[in-house]
Structure formats: C-alpha cells, structure tokens
C-alpha cells in the first residue's frame, strides 16, 4: 500500500519507513475511536438545572409534577445560560449574568461564564454540590440549594453576609478542594458571590415548590394564585432573609470581643486549664466528636453534613438503599484534630472564637455562644478560654 516491495530489503534506506506510516495510521485510528468512545458522556452545550430529588424516591414525583416544577422555576429564575429574577429580590441581575452562561471573553478583557469556569465542575450547574469532580473531595463541595453556609460571621439562625462568602472565595478552605480565588479581580468575585446567592435562592424556592406540588398535592398545572404564593412565601421571603442581614449587621453579626491579654505564663496556663475544663464539660460535649484530647477521635463517628446524611428512623439497609438516591454517596465528616493547628474556617483566634460561638452551620458542630432567646453553653469569656486551650494543643499562642 504505502511502500514498494523492496522497501524492506536490508541496506535500503527506505527500510523501516513503512512502519512509520503504519504507526501513524494506527494512532489516528486510536484517536478517532478513543475520542468518540470517551466523549459519549459530554454534556449538552446548554446545560439545564437539575430538579432537587434529595432523599426522595424518583417514583414519588410524576412527570406532570416534574414539568410543573421545572416550568415554574424557569419562569422565576430562567436557565443556566439566561438567568432571570422576579422583581423585589434585591439581587443584581447584571452581576448574575456575568457569572452565568458558557465561558466567554470580550475584546476588553472582561469575562463571562465565571461560575462555569471556576465553580461548576465541583458545585454542579445547579449548585447542588454534585459537580463532575465532587466525589473526588472530602468533604464534598457545598450544596448551595439549602441556603446554608458553614463559615459565617452571622448568628446561627441567619444567612451569611456577602462579605462572608467573599472571604471564603478569597481565602479558600485549607485541606479541601476549595481553592482560593485571590487571583481574580474584585468584580469577578462580586459576580460569583451574587450568583451563589442566586443559586441558593433558587434552591430554597425549589424545595418549597416541590413540597407544595408533591407533598401537599397542589392542583396542576399551577395557576396564577399558586405561583403568586410561591413568589411571596418562598422567593421574596428567602430574599428578605438575605437582605435583612446586610441591612442590619449590628443585629445579626456576632461581635468578637477583644481577646483577654494573658500577661504572664501563669495567666495563660490558668486560661488554658479553664478552657480544658469547659471543653470536657458535659454541657459542651466537645469531646464527643473531637475526642478527650482534641485529636478528632471522639466516640460519635456518625457525623454528616446536613445535605449528605442518612434519613432518621430508617434501618442501615434502608439507609444504604436511600443513599443511592442522594446525588452523592454518604460521606462521614471527620471532627477536627486540634493538634494540626489548621482549621477549614480560618486559623486565627478570632476565627476560632466565631466557630465556637456560631457553630458550623449545616453540620453537627453546634453554636455554643449566647444566641437571641438562648443563654448558650459558653459566655464570651469561656469561649476565649476554650480558644486558648485549642490553640495550646498545636503549640500556638
């Protein structure tokens, strides 16, 4: 085919040339077969939002119900390529549009499709924390649809500030797959924060809508009244929760009092000893997860994120079956080993104060500080003692 019969004759300079073409042809065959085979799984050019079936059996929801939910959600929030917002949410649609859609650039250097470029591979197009790379990480990426964010400066019952989300973007989360986006320009960070809030608002509205349609059996197709109800009771109500925190930070942001100065080693030792005692106290129950010595080896090993945990009141066999219906398999959380001196929510004394006071939302780590209407397990002074004790475990001061 390619060479003549004498090509293989010894001493002929053409010797061995035939395999050259043969190898290249084989490789070309491999490229075609491999690329075609491997790309059978590629996503559509315009991906769509995925309906939230968490913890539900797919058979629970009929096609009509799915269609009604999808149609209403699109009416309120648009699509991943063309987001939309009802009036009165207070969100910045222009910023959301910058983060939405496919990745693209403009001649002036501005970029679009930021969420798909930086976040969707882990958090998913829908923000369900089940992106293509999700199973690679421990813990799994955050599910934005619940509106729950772990590391905030606000009260346990409040939404985070935009600056909280921005801080997480800037700092990243050490020891996890969440990167720091410190290299991105400020306007891109703002757009990403706004889009995360948009996905969160959308997710919470969808939860409400699924309950309305599936659990309460709302008559289909959804009429104007029903949609008006969703708008008032879900979209605008959730949007208000976000807005009120921004408008009244003095009410919702947990203040961090100055850390008491320990002038001498004896004072510091006394504070650490008090902190150790508080840590081990029955009320606080810190040791139950973090272990008696803070090594993260507590007795309670069945700790999960709220968005990835077994259903209550079901047997282990049923749990295993149900887990398949969750977007991701169950993943147990690991309580922090304080000896490392590294913390996902920040390692400064002030960060630790907030973690103890506010807790870590969506996880079994409770809020131990005083909350509105509740005294709390610890006073601010107690919290500083516990912080000193925790820092002492890693040799920090």
């Amino acid at each position: 085919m390619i060479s003549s019969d004498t090509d293989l004759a010894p001493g002929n300079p053409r010797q061995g040339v035939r395999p050259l073409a043969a190898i290249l042809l084989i490789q070309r065959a491999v490229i075609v077969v491999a690329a075609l085979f491997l790309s059978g799984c590629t996503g559509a050019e315009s991906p769509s939002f995925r309906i939230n079936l968490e913890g539900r059996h797919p058979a629970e929801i009929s096609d009509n119900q799915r269609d009604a939910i999808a149609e209403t959600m699109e009416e309120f929030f648009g699509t991943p390529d063309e987001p939309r917002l009802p009036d009165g949410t207070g969100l910045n649609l222009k910023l959301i549009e910058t983060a939405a859609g496919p990745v693209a650039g403009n001649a002036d250097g501005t970029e679009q499709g930021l969420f798909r470029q930086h976040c969707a591979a882990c958090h998913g197009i829908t923000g369900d924390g089940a992106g293509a790379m999700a199973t690679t990480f421990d813990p799994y990426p955050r599910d934005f649809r619940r509106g729950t964010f772990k590391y905030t400066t606000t009260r346990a019952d409040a939404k985070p500030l935009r600056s909280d989300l921005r801080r997480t973007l800037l700092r990243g989360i050490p020891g996890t797959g969440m990167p720091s986006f410190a290299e991105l320009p400020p306007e891109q960070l703002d757009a990403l924060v706004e889009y995360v809030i948009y996905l969160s608002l959308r997710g919470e509205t969808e939860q409400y809508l699924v309950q309305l349609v599936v659990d309460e059996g709302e008559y289909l197709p959804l009429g104007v009244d029903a949609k008006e109800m969703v708008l008032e009771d879900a979209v605008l109500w959730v949007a208000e929760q976000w807005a009120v925190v921004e408008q009244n930070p003095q009410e919702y942001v947990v203040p961090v009092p100055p850390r008491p100065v320990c002038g001498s080693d004896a004072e510091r030792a006394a504070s650490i000893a008090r902190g150790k005692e508080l840590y081990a106290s029955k009320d606080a129950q810190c040791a139950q997860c973090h272990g008696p010595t803070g090594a993260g080896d507590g007795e309670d090993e069945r700790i999960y994120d709220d968005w990835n945990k077994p259903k209550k009141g079901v047997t282990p066999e049923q749990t295993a079956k149900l887990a398949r219906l969750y977007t991701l398999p169950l993943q147990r959380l690991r309580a922090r080993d304080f000896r490392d001196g590294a913390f996902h929510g920040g390692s400064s004394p002030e960060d630790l104060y907030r973690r103890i006071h506010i807790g870590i939302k969506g996880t079994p780590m409770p809020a131990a500080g005083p909350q509105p209407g509740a005294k709390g397990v610890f006073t601010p002074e107690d919290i500083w003692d516990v912080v000193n004790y925790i820092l002492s475990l890693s040799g920090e001061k």
Partner: protein
Amino acid sequence: MPNRSNSTSPIAIRAAHYAAWLLACATFPLIWMGGLVTTYSAGMAVPDWPRTHGDNMFLYPLGSWLTVWDVFLEHGHRLLGSLVGLVTIALAALLWFRDKRPAMWWLAGVALVGVCLQGVLGGLRVVGSKIFETEIFWTPAPVFLSVAAALLVLTVQAVPAGQSGRRQLRVWLRAAVVSVLFGALAWFGIAAVEDRLFLAKVHGCTAPMFFALAASAVAATSSRWVGDSPPTETPRARRIQCLTSLGAAAIYVQIVLGANLRHVAPDAAPWWFTLWVWLHVIVACGIVLLIVWQYLAARRHAGDQPVLQRRISLMAGLFSLQLALGITTWITNYGWPLWFTQNFVAVEYTVVAESFWQVLSTTAHVGVGSLCLATATSAALWSKRLLIPPSKVLGVEKDGAKKAQATPRKRHRK
C-alpha cells in the same frame, strides 16, 4: 502529479530534515500555548474565526493583541498555528518533490491534511455552535449524503444489463451498506461538531499526534536513517519493536484520557470524572511497566544501538518528569489526595486558582505529555529502522519471491 525525481538528493534530504526540525520546534510551543489557552479558559476570548474581532487575523492591531491576556493567548495561538501551517507546507513540498520514498509522500500528505484539520477544528471549537444553529439546513444533510453515497456506488460499480442477478444484488447491498454508513457518519459528525467540548477534546488530541508526526519526519529525514547502514540482526528485535510501538500507543491513549479529564462537562455525572481519573492512573502504571520493560530489553539485546538507547532513556526520563508533573497538577488543582488529607501538610494546604504553580504544572503536563508521545514514536520508528530479526533476511527473500509470483496473477485477473 508532482515531478518526483528518481533519487533523493542529500541536500534536499538535509533541507527536509531542517524543515522537520523547524516544524517540531514550532509545534512544541504551539502545544504549550494551546494548553495555556485551556488553562485560562481563554478559548472564547476571540469569539470569531478566521477573523479576530472582525479584523483580518494577520492585521489585528498589535496594541489590542498585547494588552488583554486572554486575547494575547488565543490570538497568539492562532498566529503560531498559522506559522506551523506554513512550515508544514514547506516540508510537504520538499518531501513531495525531492524525496523518492513513497512513505514520505504519505507522511507529507498526512501532515498537510492534519494541520488543516487541526486549524478547522480549532475554528469550529470557537464558532461551531453559531454555524450549526441553522438546523433546517443541517438536519437533512445526513439523508442527502447517504443517498449520494449510494448513487456513487451504483454508478461506479454499475452492472451491465443481462449480467447475473447475484452480482447485481451484491452491488445493491454494497450501496445500501455504504449509504447507511455515510448517513450515520454524517449524523454523528454533525452532532459532534455541535458539541464544543467534543471539539476541544479532538483538537487537544490531534495536536500531540501532529507533533509526533513532526518527530517522525525528523527521524526519517536524518542522515543516519537514509544512510546505507543496514539494520542489525537482533535476536529480540520483534519484541523491542512491539514494546516501543505499544508504548507510543499507550501514551496516546493516556493523552486522550487526559483530554477527557481536562474537558469534563460541567453537568457530567460525578462518577465520570472518577472513572477518567482511575483510567488515567491505571494507564500511567501500564506505561511505566512498558517503559521499564523496553528499557531492559533494549539494554540487553540492542546494547550496540546508541540511537535507540538514547531515545528510550529520554522517554523514561520524560515520563518520570511527566509523572511528577501529573502529581503536582493534581495537588495544585484539587488539593492532596483523600488518603493524604490526614497529613499535616495536606491539612494546611490551600489550592490557589490560576496561581503560577497551578498554571505551570497543568500546562507543562500537557506539553511534556506531547513530548513523551513524540519521543516514544521516534523510538518505535528507530527500532524498526535499526533492528531486524535474524530470520528476517530470508523471510524477505521468500516474501519477495512470493509477491513477484503473485503480481502477474493479479494482473492477469484484471
């Protein structure tokens, strides 16, 4: 038809050799630049093609090109690609008109088609969805192509009236099969080019192939290759040849898997990525074994072939570097692996998006992967050129005699 001379002049071969080197040297940075374009997601920074923001690509103002990083990358990638295209044309012309070896004419043809295909793939990757938006035009295309292919078969292989019905049936069946195949191919092709991720993957997989082609041209135009020295009879020649070819194929499969990891669909199910990762790791282990095996085999049985030994050693070194880069790429993109996260270093480590090390390791992993493929292809080719099994000499004579006998029979049948 090109006016091919009867003998290859040494000067022409030398010129072709330099042109092949130039092609390889221009292609390597082009691959790096392509890698950077993907790393920075800058592919859509210039949304039109073949023009650049409405201007002629070669006349795009320098100020606009150099001031925006993403545009610099994408437009620079296109310009460098054009340069590679020009060098390919020069090389192809030299090989076509001045090289007497038919295999080199084929190589020239494949290189020329390859560079054009790669350019078009890159362009479609940018404007694909806009072109194929007009479904009314594209939907009947597979049907037209299918019917046209069938008609072509029927016309070319027309059976005169009165001939046997069996022969006619055979031609009709052939036409039907070709028709279905072409229709399916067209349908799949159209579906594929509508998917930018698919195009990005194929674009990314064709580049290393082209680089390997340039490396092949470098090898096959070298003075050692075209010299009169006969291949050395080596007891395990076949095994070494198989191992080196298998090594090149395995590295290519690894590159395809890497492209799937890099261009993962944003809405793909989570287990897809895990699957690609595991396949990537398993194939990497397989390549390590293959390289060690061929290194030992070449050292033991082809110790007198420094040209081959050097290439295999270079490939071993490059692949070691590639493994290190792979691990670094993972850590700088996704953090430490799960089993390592209890470690103190891992607990404190924060991934930084688009950091210097992330960009460098990821792009270097792409570039060195291509270099591994080029070296592996070169080693495979040299093993065929330099080694021959002891029985091969007789075998050729026998084969040659058989073919000489067979040829007249074939002609007679015609």
